[in-house]
């Protein structure tokens, strides 16, 4: 599914403070099946952009279209993985993973198979009946990933989903995500702090500038997958992106 972001700006007007421009005139076209990574420093509006695509927030100006229809609210074809802790603590892991399906009215017997499949996919076999408080932070985030994937969305919005994971798990999750993506041809918009992660995953990297968030650079990543993190091409692109980010910080 194609996502089109057209001249989107977002200004927050908190009660007493002066208006805060979070995003300034962002335009982008995310093609069907594309894997886009959004990179940018803390507070530059990455989450805000993702929320607007997901229909949880509305642009102050400009508009966002998904497959030709303007976004006015949450859409079942999109799923979002939140940056912060979003599991339901009173539900077991299994029941959290099946939440989206349950809301769509899928009966329990049908759900169970899918739940188990995605619990296995994120490496949590045997934890189906555990409660989130019995899991580590990284395991919880994997449950959130499984919950989003279980509904089989055409567009996956991911807000720093692997930020809390250790390097090893993180690498494994990245590979799993790419496998799923290649198989299902979902459109993925993936926010991250990590240049390394972006270069490993993305078809295209969008770099945002510090507040207000503007598009500071776009990089096409034309390396075949699976990518070799130690390769020359990988290192060159990573260095280019890092340099841009450094320059943006210096100009602040």
């Amino acid at each position, binding site marked *: 599914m194609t996502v089109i972001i057209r001249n989107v700006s977002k200004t927050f007007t908190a009660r007493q403070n002066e208006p805060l421009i979070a995003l300034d005139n962002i335009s982008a076209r995310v093609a069907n099946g594309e894997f886009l990574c959004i990179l940018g420093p803390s507070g530059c509006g990455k989450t805000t952009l993702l929320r607007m695509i997901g229909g949880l927030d509305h642009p102050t100006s400009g508009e966002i279209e998904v497959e030709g229809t303007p976004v006015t609210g949450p859409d079942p074809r999109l*799923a979002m993985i939140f940056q912060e802790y979003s599991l339901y603590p009173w539900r077991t892991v299994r029941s959290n993973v099946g939440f989206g399906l349950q*809301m769509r009215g899928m009966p329990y017997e049908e759900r169970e198979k899918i739940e188990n499949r995605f619990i296995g996919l994120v490496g949590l076999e045997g934890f189906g009946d555990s409660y989130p*408080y019995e899991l580590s932070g990284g395991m919880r985030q994997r449950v959130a990933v499984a919950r989003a994937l279980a509904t089989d969305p055409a567009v996956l919005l991911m807000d720093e989903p692997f930020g809390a994971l250790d390097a090893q798990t993180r690498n494994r999750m990245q590979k799993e995500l790419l496998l799923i993506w290649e198989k299902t041809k979902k459109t993925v918009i993936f926010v991250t702090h990590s240049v390394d992660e972006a270069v490993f995953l993305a078809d295209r990297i969008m770099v945002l500038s510090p507040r207000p968030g503007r598009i500071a650079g776009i990089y096409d990543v034309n390396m075949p997958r699976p990518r070799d993190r130690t390769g020359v091409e990988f290192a060159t692109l990573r260095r280019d992106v890092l340099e841009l980010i450094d320059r943006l910080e210096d100009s602040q």
Partner: protein
Amino acid sequence: MRWYLKLLPPFFLLLAWEVASILINNPFILPTPVSVAAVLMTPMADILGSGSIIDNALLSVWRVVLGFGLAVLCAVPIGIIIGRYRTIEELVNPIIQLLRPIPPLAWVPLALAWFKIGLLSIVFIIFIGSFFPILINSIDGVRRVNRTWIETAAIYGAKGWKLLAYVILPASAPAIWTGLRVGFGVAWMCVVAAEMLPGTTSGIGYLIMYSYNWGQVQVIIAGMIVIGIIGIGVDVLFRAVEKRKFQWQEMNR
């Protein structure tokens, strides 16, 4: 702490009571623990033609069940609505703040004027007493539901009653439950007080008031102990459910 250490304070209380009752030597002021125990040992025995301690206590419990049940049925839904909608809260909050500090017993004259002496006015007093703790806790619980939980539900298409049943209610259940526990405590105090009103002819509150008229101080104390035990018993039940069902709230870091 060792369990037998915990038995020491009550033991000393009993001892002090025993000594005091011997020194005072007047059963109309302070009867001996043994005479009170005697009353408690025969809870089914009729007392001065007013029925047994058990009969009267059960009647009081039944009144509380009516008044408290009614309060739950009203306060929880109203609390959820107020907690969900900011504008409604702003509209009704002044009224709540005005009515809440009025002690339930201050409603007695009005209750008598409206419902006369009898079951209805007692139930009304209990209702008023437990309504506000339940309401306040429900409002608070619903208002504090994590925004991300609601937005997650929105992402997965949960709206209306589904949002209510699968997210809002379970998320605020611990707070609502606390409201019920506190509300029941108040209801139990209210029933005893309301039963002491002139014209009442039954209930554990009536029984101890009636025993006073006959100088049966050992029955008064026995009745007070029964009131305390029932109050603690219900509180323990509420807490047990809380521990089993809402463990996630404690553990949720």
